């Protein structure tokens, strides 16, 4: 039913860099529950594209500074 996501993220580091913003603060600013921020940080949940953009906007960084997707072994960039 559930395959772990290959999408990784830098939310924890970005929160730290943003004055040690708490998960609750980020959740409030994005408009989601704190549990959802925790699940995203731990790689247990991949947000929708819209939520991903909202998170990136809070940190004022491009989307790919928040979320990363590993390159394929043949050197081609993965889709995601």
């Amino acid at each position: 039913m559930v395959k772990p996501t290959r999408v990784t993220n830098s939310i924890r580091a970005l929160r730290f860099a943003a004055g040690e913003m708490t998960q609750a603060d980020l959740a409030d600013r994005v408009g989601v529950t704190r549990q959802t921020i925790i699940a995203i940080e731990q790689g247990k949940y991949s947000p929708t594209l819209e939520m991903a953009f909202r998170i990136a906007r809070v940190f004022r960084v491009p989307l790919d500074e928040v979320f990363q997707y590993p390159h394929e072994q043949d050197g081609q960039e993965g889709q995601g």
Partner: protein
Amino acid sequence: MAFLEKSNWVVLVVGVPTLLVYLFVVVPQVLGQPIAEISWVEPMIVTIVVFVVANVLGNVVAAASNPREADTNDERDREIDRLGERVGNWLIIAGSIVALVLAMARADHFWIANAIFLGGLAGSLVSAVTKIAAYHGPFQRW
């Protein structure tokens, strides 16, 4: 814990004992006397009323313990809710199909009502377990 997760814990905490008590009352009768003589309507009604009322009260208590959280749900909550409902609905449908077949076979009302009742209750419980599992494990849409 998200409010919707608490709400599903309420379903489990209320639903499992309620179902067990119903089975404890009805199953010995099924084993010991003719189906037509079984007193099942009252226990079933009481079980349904207790299940519904206890769920409402449980949700009120859960909401009162953190009103702000009770008003908040997001896309993950909604997706988990949809997944759980989809899984639970299969059991409800299965119970309904069994009831339909029993009705076609002119089975006693007892069996028809219980197929629907147990399918519905089992569907609620499995739905709650699915949602709680989704809250704790990895959950992706694809």
